[in-house]
């Protein structure tokens, strides 16, 4: 099992390296990217099954003592999120192959291999057992995302790319300084050892570390008030890139927030995190209501949804953390599908501005269905996965009697629905006869693959709702492992 963990990081890297030198041979790159992503998905599935029955798997790189060396740890939470993430990237890559050489597609020579570099960074971020490797994983993800965001060199991309790069570089520098503080005060950066040593520190130092990393990971997760880079930069990137970013990147921030803050027992920060969660929800959805472009509305929704995951974390109860994990698992495929549909709309209509499109439901009923189902799910309408995930969180909130956040979370669902209705009326309703400006587009042969990939991702996200019982059990067990880290510590240290 442990060698499989190593493969997960190494294979995408190697495939990326070969992809960069493959030159004009596009088929080599396609086989490499799709092959290694499919392989990673399969391995993630095997690992999940194994971890579910046998418990946490640990890989000690170079067989060093965990206090000094790098450890990769697959616990239940990591395996669960990893499987969803790998499958999502695979679907997006298939979409990208269909979309190639349209005006909204990314440059295939670069984007395939770079997506693989990003993938191995994502794997590393999910599996790493120490803070410094986490820093390296973040840098891997960020460097490839900087290039993916700006490689077409369009004016808007360069402008928003600067904001994106500056915010994230600053957060990375803060991360390094935080690492120095943690190392100076505990003598290790290994998460399992930190789970033992940080709770023993003096209160001011412990809170300082907790707050510091709340800012660092919060910037990656785009929580209030650190979100400003997100709605600016995401919509300018090629569709496939945005879909991966929207589905995954902020969620990695949330994932490490949950992992670090729960493992090190930062319960005292709960009220602060809940306040931030409420503000993140409200500001995100308010931003979405003000926008009039499909991709920008969807970008603001990411922020508001991050608020829900933070809410689960802020409760610091079993049900809360489990709710946050399950919400994370539901959110990744749903958000990706929505952005892929946004890409399909753009491909058909030549724009994603609401006032320039209309009547798409008549002309493209399939597209309307592909949009409507995940949109309802995101807003939390039964029987979709968004409803059960939100119900779990609200339930956890009621259990701990934190009424304000529950009220805000529910009100926010309604507002999310309103902004989805805005997209619906703008894009899909109307006669659509007043758009003389819209050129008649000839569909490219790859179109079927794009629609197919979107449909597969949609079916996967519906499957999450159907299999919610087992998923909730897994989430609860993963949360229990985090809240009571003795098993995690034992697996890593001994």
């Amino acid at each position, binding site marked *: 099992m442990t060698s499989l963990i190593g493969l997960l990081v190494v294979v995408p890297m190697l495939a990326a390296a070969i992809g960069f030198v493959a030159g004009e041979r596009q088929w080599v790159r396609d086989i490499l990217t799709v092959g290694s992503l499919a392989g990673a998905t399969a391995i993630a599935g095997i690992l999940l099954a194994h971890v579910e029955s046998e418990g946490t798997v640990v890989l000690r790189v170079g067989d060093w003592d965990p206090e000094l060396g790098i450890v990769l740890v697959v616990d239940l939470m990591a395996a669960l999120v990893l499987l969803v993430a790998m499958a999502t990237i695979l679907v997006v890559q298939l979409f990208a192959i269909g979309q190639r050489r349209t005006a909204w597609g990314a440059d295939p020579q670069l984007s395939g291999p770079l997506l693989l570099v990003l993938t191995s960074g994502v794997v590393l971020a999910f599996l790493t057992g120490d803070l410094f490797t986490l820093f390296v994983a973040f840098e891997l993800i960020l460097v490839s995302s900087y*290039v993916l965001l700006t490689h077409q060199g369009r*004016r808007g991309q*360069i402008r928003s790319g600067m904001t994106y790069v500056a915010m994230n570089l600053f957060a990375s*520098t803060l991360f*390094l300084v935080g690492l120095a503080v943690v*190392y*100076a005060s505990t003598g290790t950066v290994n998460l399992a050892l930190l789970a033992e040593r940080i709770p023993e520190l003096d209160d001011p130092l412990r809170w300082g570390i907790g707050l510091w990393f709340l800012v660092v990971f919060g910037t990656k997760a785009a929580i209030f008030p650190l979100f400003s880079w997100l709605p600016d930069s995401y*919509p300018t990137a090629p569709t496939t890139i945005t879909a991966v970013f929207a589905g995954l990147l902020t969620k990695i921030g949330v994932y490490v927030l949950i992992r670090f803050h729960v493992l090190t027992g930062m319960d005292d920060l709960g009220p602060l995190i809940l306040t931030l969660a409420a503000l993140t929800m409200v500001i995100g959805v308010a931003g979405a209501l003000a926008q009039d*472009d499909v991709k920008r509305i969807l970008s603001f929704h990411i922020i508001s949804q991050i608020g829900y995951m933070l809410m689960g974390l802020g409760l610091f109860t079993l049900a809360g953390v489990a709710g946050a994990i399950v919400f994370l698992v539901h959110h990744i495929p749903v958000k990706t599908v929505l952005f892929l549909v946004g890409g399909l709309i753009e491909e058909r209509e030549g724009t994603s501005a609401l006032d320039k499109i209309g009547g798409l439901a008549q002309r493209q009923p399939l597209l309307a269905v592909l949009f409507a189902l995940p949109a309802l799910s995101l807003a939390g309408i039964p029987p979709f996965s968004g409803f059960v995930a939100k119900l779990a969180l609200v339930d956890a909130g009621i259990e701990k009697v934190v009424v304000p956040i529950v009220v805000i979370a529910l009100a926010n669902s309604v507002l999310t629905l309103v902004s989805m209705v805005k997209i619906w009326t703008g894009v899909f309703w109307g006669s659509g006869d007043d758009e003389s400006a819209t050129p008649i587009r000839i569909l490219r042969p790859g179109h079927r693959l794009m629609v197919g990939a979107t449909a597969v991702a949609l079916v996967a996200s519906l499957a999450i709702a159907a299999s919610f019982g087992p998923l909730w059990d897994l989430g609860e067990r993963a949360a229990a492992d985090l809240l009571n880290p003795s098993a995690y510590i034992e697996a890593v240290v001994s």
Partner: protein
Amino acid sequence: MSVTLALVVGGLTSVGVYLITSRSLTRMLLGFALLGHAAVVALLAAGGEAGERPISGDAPVDELSDPLPQAFALTAIVISFGLTLFLLALARRQAQLTGDDLVEDDLEDRRIALETEAEGDDA
């Protein structure tokens, strides 16, 4: 951790933060370089008292410097070197597109803000 190192970290950070609030990308780049140095010095300071060369085996273990923060610092230096190059490329592209390297306004956001203001005037 010596006071000198702490002061150096503080000084580098304050100058760095001042520079990255600038709109010119080349200044921002210098700011990030300084911030990176501050973080590296902080990492070294986290290693505690300086001692003999580690790993080479010339001195007993209890007299050595802590090699782990040094390894962190080296990794961080390599990463910040790569990022500096990327920022330079970005600044050059911006200069090609607009003739300078200033960060522009978010046009979409400005437009929506103006529309809202106009609606407010009507009411």
